[in-house]
């Protein structure tokens, strides 16, 4: 029973990371109805930026803040330069551009930082607390997740800019008629997704270690989480993240072992897509044929 509880708790901790990644995916999906296959590599790249700063002697939290800000700017730049020209292109072209972006980020990171695994510091102590059920890092991750969620909720719900972003995603023509610069709202969405992804990368790097391929599995679980919760529903995606985190841990401990983690994600993704394509809380899935 204690072991079970421990599995659930640490599942919730990794689930927090999946929730953040899912949130980043949902943000871009809501604005553009596209799934960003390069989201994981963007987060990986951001984490390397943080590593560079910390390695150069910058204290953790200033480096964290700078990384989030830098990622925000990079996300906007990527949307403006790479994504904008194919905005109205067929899905296949957009997917190919996303994959191109994924490959470029992955190889540039490998080029600059090599493929050797690096350790990444956690801002939280590593010892176990609460009777050994959960590590301080895991608890810290959960707190950061909740912080990100609350910030995003407040931003989208209560600020004029957040409202404008929601409006632009929903009805671009009407948005232009009230004076919203829709193109910039999309870019802003990319910036936010990149910033949020950076947080996920920095939270997960102390656990999985830093290397150019570190986000592949996490992105896959992020997909599963977003789909499970409903890919157009931010709150659902977060819930999906925690559920998927716990499922992953329980499946790893009691069913298939850790060697098939990615297969569990594959089964989850295909299962949700086939059985309940709008997710648990999503509106009816809109597909661009």
């Amino acid at each position: 029973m204690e072991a079970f509880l421990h599995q659930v708790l640490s599942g919730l901790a990794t689930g927090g990371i999946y929730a953040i990644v899912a949130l980043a995916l949902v943000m871009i999906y809501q604005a553009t109805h596209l799934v960003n296959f390069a989201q994981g590599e963007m987060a990986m790249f951001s984490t390397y930026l943080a590593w560079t700063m910390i390695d150069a002697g910058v204290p953790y939290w200033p480096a964290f803040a700078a990384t989030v800000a830098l990622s925000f700017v990079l996300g906007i730049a990527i949307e403006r330069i790479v994504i904008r020209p194919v905005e109205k292109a067929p899905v296949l072209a957009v997917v190919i551009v996303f994959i191109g972006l994924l490959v470029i980020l992955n190889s540039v990171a490998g080029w600059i930082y090599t493929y050797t695994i690096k350790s990444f510091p956690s801002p939280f102590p590593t010892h176990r607390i609460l009777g050994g059920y959960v590590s301080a890092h895991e608890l810290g991750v959960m707190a950061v997740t909740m912080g990100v969620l609350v910030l995003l909720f407040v931003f989208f719900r209560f600020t004029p800019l957040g409202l404008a972003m929601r409006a632009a995603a929903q009805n671009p023509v009407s948005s232009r008629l009230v004076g919203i610069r829709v193109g910039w709202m999309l870019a802003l969405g990319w910036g936010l997704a990149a910033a949020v992804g950076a947080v996920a990368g920095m939270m997960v790097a102390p656990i999985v270690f830093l290397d150019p391929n570190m986000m592949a599995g996490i992105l896959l679980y992020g997909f599963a989480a977003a789909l499970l919760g409903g890919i157009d529903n931010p709150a659902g995606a977060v819930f999906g993240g925690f559920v998927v985190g716990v499922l992953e841990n329980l499946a790893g401990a009691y069913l298939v072992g850790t060697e098939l983690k990615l297969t569990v994600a594959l089964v989850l993704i295909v299962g949700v897509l086939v059985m309940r394509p709008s997710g648990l809380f999503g509106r009816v899935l809109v597909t661009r044929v």
Partner: protein
Amino acid sequence: MDMTDRTWRRIGLAALLALACLLPFLVSSYRTFQLTSALSYAIALLGLNILTGYNGQISLGHGAFYAIGAYVAAILMDRFGVPYWATLPAAGAVCLVIGFLFGLPALRLEGLYLALATFALALATPQILKYKLLEDWTGGVQGIVILKPDPPFGLPLDQDQWLYFFTLVVAIVMFWLGRNLLAGRIGRALVAIRDHPIAAETMGVDTAFYKATTFGVSALYTGVAGALGAIVIQFVAPDSFTLFLSITLLVGIVVGGLASISGALWGALFIQFVPNVADHISKAAPWAIYGLFLIAFMYLMPTGIAGFLRTLAARLTRRPSRR
């Protein structure tokens, strides 16, 4: 005009074939080996192009079918002593069935979601191949080593040359079949489903059946290619079949030309030889180049090399008639 076009194409094909037959006697055995591997890629690319280029179903996971084909061949040869040539139909058949089955749920997934599901498949493939319960068959992380076949009937060829001609014949047969499939009614139905899914349905095209079957046939091609690839390289291991193999195949059809048969050949030469050149710069360089090419082709040359050559040829033949 139509006649001369066709005549020119025949002359071109004959010249290409003659060149293909001569090449292994002109270049080193290592180059011959590379050309053989490029031919097997070409078959895989034709398979992916049937699905993604012609039928519009995005697959980011065709490396999985390549892997299945490779492992079927390796396991049959290594564990059951099946001759190498007999593994190709087996690999094709297994992939046809698995592809069709994967295609069934995939039917309900439009565009992006199919891309997502196949992306997940590509990421999960190496793990499944390493899984310990399958280890007796797959050899786990170590993989399987297989032997290079000798030329039959006392032919005066070395092993690499023989394998090259064997692959060439398989490739010609697969391309000929593919061309006949795509040039006729079925090809038109596939394109109709891609471009006007609802109209195709109302005009009586059985969209569901076509899509699942296309998935199966596409997987068959890729599986045969995988089997050939395994025989050529004499080795299969899980880490050869990562997401990046699937992306390599995607690069191949984009660079070669989406929805083009000859594009598969250009794409195969590209993915075989460009990384070799780029490797000298850095380990990461081939991938950086792949990524740049993916994006650049989508912006500047969305019809790929094949499309570029087509417009070039059209321009060259049109010029005299205009004057």
